């Protein structure tokens, strides 16, 4: 048995923005373009990037909210993209999602108890008589009191709602949880509570996380490996320590440097990226980052760099590290 839980192969998702009169697409948004990586059992894989980089689209493909345009998602060696809708739904309970916005992700007309019980009932995980006990157990797991199960979401604060969202995800006994920016909508003092809770639950239930975030600081705390995306492409993948101490891709370096330091005495040398993220409808040719990169070369405008293993476990997609260039650059 392999240690790989999910293997993503050349996954792409294109959205049709406009069609002509005959229904042929004339303008296509390439949200995710040819992305491959693996998630090991029991690890937390951090996925980082700015808005529009495709990280959320990628997460939503894993939980069956979007169908991939091409590529494969191998879950425990089963290709999920090859299944029909009904068979695909059977895998829903294995891969769960925690949403970014705790205010929008809970049905306002259901009690918290019903919200948490729903995955159990739909997937017939337990006989009806045992559902309530399980709900109480889950509430306790996420730090809520059992009497709160009869309340409606609007009676809860943001942090508590996010705990409900976590309990709902846990209810299905998932193997993998996709956490889509689970703390970015929360207050600072509550963020730490939720991050620690996620950390604890991972150990307690042997979970695997795909942890999506826009900032590198949150991901650093919880992840074992980190992938950096930009405009639908994977730019760099590395173990956490390696990435933070020895980032290779110029985009990763800029992202790291953009994080404000919690120390006003240390004004660091900042790489301020020029310009904006280009539109994913009309991405630049060659390397997607070439319009903003400080170390751009001629080749970057023409050839899309491949994601290559530069050091063991450390992958990057950048022409700076092409074999013919390495001697000149380093």
């Amino acid at each position, binding site marked *: 048995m392999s240690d790989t839980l999910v293997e993503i192969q050349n996954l792409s998702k294109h959205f049709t923005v406009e069609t002509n009169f005959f229904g042929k697409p004339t303008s296509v948004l390439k949200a995710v373009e040819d992305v491959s990586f693996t998630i090991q059992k029991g690890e937390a894989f951090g996925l980082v990037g*700015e*808005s529009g980089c495709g990280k959320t689209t990628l997460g939503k493909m894993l939980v069956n909210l979007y169908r991939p345009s091409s590529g494969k998602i191998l879950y425990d060696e089963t290709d999920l993209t090859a299944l029909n809708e009904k068979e695909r739904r059977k895998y829903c309970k294995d891969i769960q999602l925690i949403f970014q916005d705790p205010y929008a992700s809970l049905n306002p007309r259901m009690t918290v108890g019903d919200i948490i019980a729903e995955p159990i009932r739909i997937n017939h995980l337990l006989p009806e008589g045992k559902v309530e006990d399980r709900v109480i157990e889950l509430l306790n797991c996420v730090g809520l009191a059992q009497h709160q199960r009869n309340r409606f979401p609007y009676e809860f*604060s*943001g*942090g*508590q709602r996010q705990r409900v969202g976590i309990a709902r995800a846990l209810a299905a006994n998932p193997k993998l949880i996709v956490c889509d920016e689970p703390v970015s909508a929360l*207050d*600072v*003092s*509550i*963020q*730490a*509570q939720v*991050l*620690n809770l996620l*950390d604890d639950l991972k150990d307690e239930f042997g979970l695997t996380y795909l942890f999506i975030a*826009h*900032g*590198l*600081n*949150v991901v*650093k*705390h919880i992840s074992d490996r980190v992938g950096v995306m930009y405009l639908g492409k994977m730019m760099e993948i590395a173990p956490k320590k390696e990435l*933070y101490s020895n980032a290779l891709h110029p985009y990763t370096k*800029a*992202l*790291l*440097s*953009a*994080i*404000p*330091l*919690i*120390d*006003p*005495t240390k004004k660091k040398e*900042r790489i*301020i*990226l020029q*310009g*904006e*993220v280009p539109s994913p409808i009309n991405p630049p040719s060659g390397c997607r980052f070439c319009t903003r990169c400080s170390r751009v070369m001629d080749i970057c405008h023409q050839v899309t760099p491949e994601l290559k293993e530069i050091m063991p476990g450390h992958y990057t997609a950048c022409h700076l590290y092409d074999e013919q260039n390495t001697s000149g650059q380093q």
Partner: protein
Amino acid sequence: MLLEVNHLKTDFKLKKGIVHAVNDVSFGIEKGEILAIVGESGSGKSVTSLSVMGLLQEPGKVVDGEILYKGEDLLKKSEKELQKIRGDQISMIFQEPMTSLNPVYRIKDQIIESIMTHMKLSRKEALARTVEMLKTVGIPSPGQRANDYPHQMSGGMRQRVMIAMALACNPELLIADEPTTALDVTIQAQILELLYSLRERFNMAVLLITHDLGVVAEAADRVIVMYCGQIMEEADVKSLFSNPMHPYTLGLLNSIPRIEDESGERLYMIKGMVPNPLHMPQGCPFSDRCDRCMERCTLEMPELKEVGGHKVRCFLYNQEAGKEADDR
């Protein structure tokens, strides 16, 4: 002192009771200074800024205190006088740059309109100033982009437009309410850099409202930490970060995941959550979450006192109570 707020109290009268959203808050801003008010949701930081601008909406109302701008009390001014000051001498930028721009007008028309209401300029001159301001805030090819509609711009660009609009009439005070919260990290870095350079260039004072201590550390000169409508601590930015005194400030600083932290250990947590404003704990509002809560904290409200260059609202730094704390 450019702006001086004394004992400001703002209440929200709700059906279920009265919420003291801002409770006896006093502070001042000097010319050219960046003062940050940092706090979580419900801390009253945004209500403070809205009170200063006179933009509070029902059911919110300033019930006490004074807001002195260049020595004149803004609370005593009529709506018409306030409109003259707003946008001309005091400007504001908001968190959500999409909803603060009118989607049916070109951005140049929106900026020209605000220039022409406050400055005696012809339309042509106002247009020239618009393009100049867009250039100042770093919008490439400003002449062309001025003809864009808001939806044609990205979030970062729209925030720049908002800043350009706010700066168009040379305000002396800019109130920036979470100006970078809706933006990506690389864009946030750009906008903070911009705010900083504009301050240098125009010697403009900035009241920066934020929940992000990282932004505070990057941009501010002085910091006010608010919690449940009250100032908990006020200090110079360097001193606040190197020597936080109030347990709440300390807790906030410790609970942020830090990029430079190598240990990978559990994050520090402030237990519990912000109390319901209708059911405030007795005594210090932070007492039910504080690690160093003493009996006295649950009974009476500590005063905001000057201790070692900081202003702190905590019994730990009260002389009698200080002994008690040392004895432990």
